[in-house]
């Protein structure tokens, strides 16, 4: 396909500008400190909320021993990725604990007590990924737990999948090495140290997406990273035509996906659209590196590079940290000398948040851990009146007018705020940065967004409630109508009885009909009896019972069979009694006894059979799996799954092992 005019411009290396943006002090003091790996901490806490989903399942129990890289959860749906143990040890608890959130929310976390041996599961890498189909590679990326490491933690596999889904063609793959946030240098260091691996990762993603062009965007304040990346690219002859390194001017927030797309392509993608559906995929360098690790080395995402900086620390640098390590451990390793009201910020100084507790784990979205002193970053001064200087409007990369939005938001005019474009706000913090009156604009917008989503949720609930109400009213109406009809019929019957025209005839007819019905029923019941006695019980028929090795359940099964028989007998008796209503009570009892005597013999036989079937079926499952007779294996496994929910916990574990085999 011939490239369009726009595309040829992009190929030639034209750069566009996005609206607004700020140039804060870069403060990149850790640019030249190499990445060092932190030791294994005393405790690993892995938040599970992003790894479970609606029907997710935790695959381990408290007290289990897990190895490094072992899968801990099976997420429900494709929107979530499984969690992996970041070191080997014993699972000590699965309980609520504080999450890395500005409000100090707590959520379900899995805690591992490391044994310091770091025993790994076997990592099966794929050496020749070009022979594997993109779909499979995407599945591997999902299974290895890869999510966006730039801070937003968007699931990478979903992004890639959306880009190559039917109807979508990926034209451009952008590797985001802009790292516009001040202080953060983790991407910079990674590019300097792992340039070759990143290029390999680019190769993998290019194989998945088949783009026409790959751009590696790096801000011009990272000369070393640019040098390292171009050197690594020169080594790869096969990628020379496809991949280009684009040096972009330093301007915050050029690292935000839409702004980066605007810089590199001149296209503004509205916030209502997904970038990957527009033929452009943006991934952070660290994510690309993680993809390489996942595909070629087979390692799941269990470590990430984090910049640790701030004047309250006596040591600064970039650390390779296992996910789940507590912030306290990181700060202790970097010799924190806390001030009064020490702030600990997760993320950069412009978009990061202070945490109320340092006993929270490092997650995939943590790019920086900052411990600034007041010399470094002052406490926020008191707010003054807005003088409508318009500085915020001139720096907003989303082309909003923040002071207007702020006024609406403060006045609780949520509809007006929405009209002003609160949904386009990326909370980049440019407006708060430049505001001369030191108004916390971004914070207000964050709040406004939360309120907006709350309102939307309430509206949705209202709607649902109204629907339910309408259905209820309809039902009530219908019932009332039915009642009316019944009443009418009853009245009509009474009227007819009063008239008493052909009453006796009708009665006789009805009795006759009832008799015929009863006879038919009795015959059918007799037929059934003989059948159950005669047939060799087909194993397939009682398959539902086959797995009930549990004595109690089997007992239940027996009982149910007995009960069935008894019921049948009862019904037969009742029919008998219907016909011969005058039969005395004791005789009727005797009839029941008789029936039981008749059936007990067959009953025992059935139970025997079920036992045999149990054993046979169990063997069958194993032999089927061993012989890899797929159809049989799948059907039997399905049966196992069907019954799985009813089974007690110890049995379920067996099943999991069975599945894993």
């Amino acid at each position, binding site marked *: 396909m011939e490239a369009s005019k726009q595309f040829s411009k992009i190929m030639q290396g034209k750069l566009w500008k996005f609206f607004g943006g700020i140039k804060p002090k870069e403060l990149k003091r850790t640019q030249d400190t190499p990445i060092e790996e932190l030791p294994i901490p005393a405790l690993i806490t892995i938040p599970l909320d992003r790894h479970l989903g609606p029907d997710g399942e935790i695959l381990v129990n408290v007290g289990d021993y897990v190895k490094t890289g072992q899968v801990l959860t099976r997420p429900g749906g494709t929107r979530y990725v499984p969690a992996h143990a970041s070191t080997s040890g014993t699972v000590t608890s699965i309980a609520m604990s504080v999450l890395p959130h500005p409000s100090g929310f707590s959520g379900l976390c899995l805690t591992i007590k490391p044994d310091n041996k770091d025993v790994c599961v076997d990592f099966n890498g794929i050496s020749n990924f070009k022979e594997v189909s993109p779909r499979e590679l995407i599945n591997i990326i999902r299974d290895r737990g890869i999510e966006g490491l730039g801070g937003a933690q968007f699931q990478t596999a979903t992004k890639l999948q959306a880009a190559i889904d039917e109807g979508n063609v990926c034209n451009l793959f952008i590797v985001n090495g802009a790292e516009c946030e001040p202080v953060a240098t983790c991407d910079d260091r990674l590019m300097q140290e792992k340039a070759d691996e990143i290029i390999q990762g680019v190769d993998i993603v290019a194989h998945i997406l088949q783009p026409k062009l790959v751009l590696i965007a790096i801000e011009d304040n990272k000369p070393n990273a640019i040098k390292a990346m171009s050197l690594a690219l020169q080594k790869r002859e096969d990628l020379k035509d496809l991949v280009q390194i684009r040096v972009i001017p330093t301007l915050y927030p050029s690292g935000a996906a839409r702004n980066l797309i605007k810089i590199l392509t001149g296209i503004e993608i509205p916030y209502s659209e997904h970038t990957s559906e527009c033929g452009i995929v943006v991934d952070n360098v660290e994510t690309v590196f993680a993809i390489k690790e996942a595909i070629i080395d087979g390692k799941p995402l269990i470590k990430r590079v984090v910049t640790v900086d701030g004047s309250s620390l006596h040591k600064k640098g970039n650390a390779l940290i296992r996910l789940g390590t507590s912030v306290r451990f990181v700060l202790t390793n970097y010799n924190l000398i806390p001030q009064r009201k020490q702030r600990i910020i997760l993320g950069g*100084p*412009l978009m990061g948040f202070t945490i109320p*507790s340092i006993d929270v784990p490092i997650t995939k979205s943590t790019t920086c851990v900052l411990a600034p002193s007041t010399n470094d970053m002052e406490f926020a001064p008191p707010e003054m009146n807005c*003088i409508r200087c318009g*500085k915020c*409007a001139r720096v907003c*990369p989303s082309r909003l007018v923040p002071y*207007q939005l702020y006024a609406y938001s403060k006045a609780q005019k949520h509809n007006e705020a929405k009209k002003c474009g609160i949904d386009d706000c990326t909370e980049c913090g440019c407006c708060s940065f430049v505001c001369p009156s030191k108004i916390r604009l*971004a914070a207000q917008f964050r709040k406004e967004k939360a309120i907006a989503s709350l309102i939307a949720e309430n509206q949705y609930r209202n709607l649902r409630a109204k629907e339910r109400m309408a259905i209820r009213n309809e039902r009530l109406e219908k019932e009332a109508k039915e009642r009316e009809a019944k009443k009418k019929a009853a009245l009509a019957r009474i009227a007819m009885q009063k008239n008493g025209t052909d009453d006796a005839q009708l009665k006789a007819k009805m009795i006759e009909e009832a008799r015929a019905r009863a006879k038919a029923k009795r015959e059918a019941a007799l037929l059934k009896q003989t059948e159950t006695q005669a047939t060799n019980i087909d194993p397939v028929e009682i398959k539902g019972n086959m797995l009930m090795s549990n004595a109690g359940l089997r007992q239940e099964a027996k009982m149910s069979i007995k009960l069935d028989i008894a019921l049948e007998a009862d019904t037969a008796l009742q029919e008998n009694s219907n016909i011969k209503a005058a039969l005395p009570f004791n005789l009727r009892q005797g009839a029941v006894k008789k029936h039981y005597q008749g059936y007990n013999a067959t009953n025992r036989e059935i139970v025997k059979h079920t036992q045999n079937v149990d054993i046979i079926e169990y063997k069958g499952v194993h032999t089927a799996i061993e012989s890899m007779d797929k159809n049989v294996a799948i059907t039997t496994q399905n049966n196992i799954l069907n019954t799985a929910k009813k089974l007690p916990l110890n049995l379920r574990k067996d099943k999991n092992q069975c599945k894993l085999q």
Partner: protein
Amino acid sequence: MQITVKSAKQNLGIETAPHIRDNMSTPRIMLYVIIALVPAFITTIFFFGFGVLWQFVIALISSLICEVIVAFLRSYKLKHHLADHAYIVTALLLALTLPPLIPWYFTATASAFAILVVKHCFGGLGQNIFNPAMAGFIFLMISAPSSFYQTYVTPSAYAYKIASLDASASIILEGRDPQELRMQLKANLENADIITGATYLESIKTAKKSGIDDQINNIDFLGHDFNAYFYLALAYILGGIFLIATKVILFQMPLSFLITIFIGGYIWHNLAPNVSLSGIEHLLCGGTMLAAFFIITDPVTNAGTSKGRIVFSIFCALLILLIRVQGSYSDSVAFAVLLANATAPLIDVLTKRRSFGIGYKKGGLQ
């Protein structure tokens, strides 16, 4: 919110993002404006005498008292309330625009009106619709026209020697007749008889109305009698450049404003020389330069976005031309500015910014 007891005990600092901020602050902006007004202030003293300084002192004291009253009424912390130096700017602008020899109670009233009614009745700093200094000026101009015109002085070089601190104090504070001093100042000029009114603008207007403008036409703004206007304009431009350099004001605003006034004046003068001033006279006379750099650039009372501000400037310039040429008052800057202020919200609506991603085609890049 759900902060556990354990986490609350850690006593960490909590703060919303972003954690770093620009150095520029509202007090600093006001300070820059004050600094930028200093050269113009000195020049004004040089050409109009020390009356201006007295006016500034009176206006400052008056507005300070008003601010204290407001802080007391609204139970604000006084220190925090006075931290923005906006009232100093208002006082300074009032001193520069009011007649230098007007009695003190007029100045005090004007500044009280500006602070109390125009600013704080609308909700304080940042909420006012009209420019406080201009509103105070007009309040006085309309309510006390006679004393207003009797206290205006004709600018002349070394006026500060004649209208010294004592001489102006005796008129402003003690209420002596200003006529004598005014005549003295006028006598300082070489061709005093050309000027019929107090200022050049006033004189030329009366001259044009009566149809005898031959004498006063084609004056030399670099000559002895009229260089006051030139140097004053230069001082304002100097201050304006300082503000542009410190990014307090947008350079597009004064630029579009001055260009509109110049071109508009030039065209009107060529079409009807008996009615309108020439372009250069429009630029140098009256409050044009002051308005260009210090009045229309007041962020509170104009439109929000850059585009809106340029539209606002052009509209204000056109109003100045119209009122100056067709109106009955000699100068029109204050009226034009107030009228334009009133239209600022409308301009805000009309120059609404397109939102991000407009013009995006489905499918994006091909």
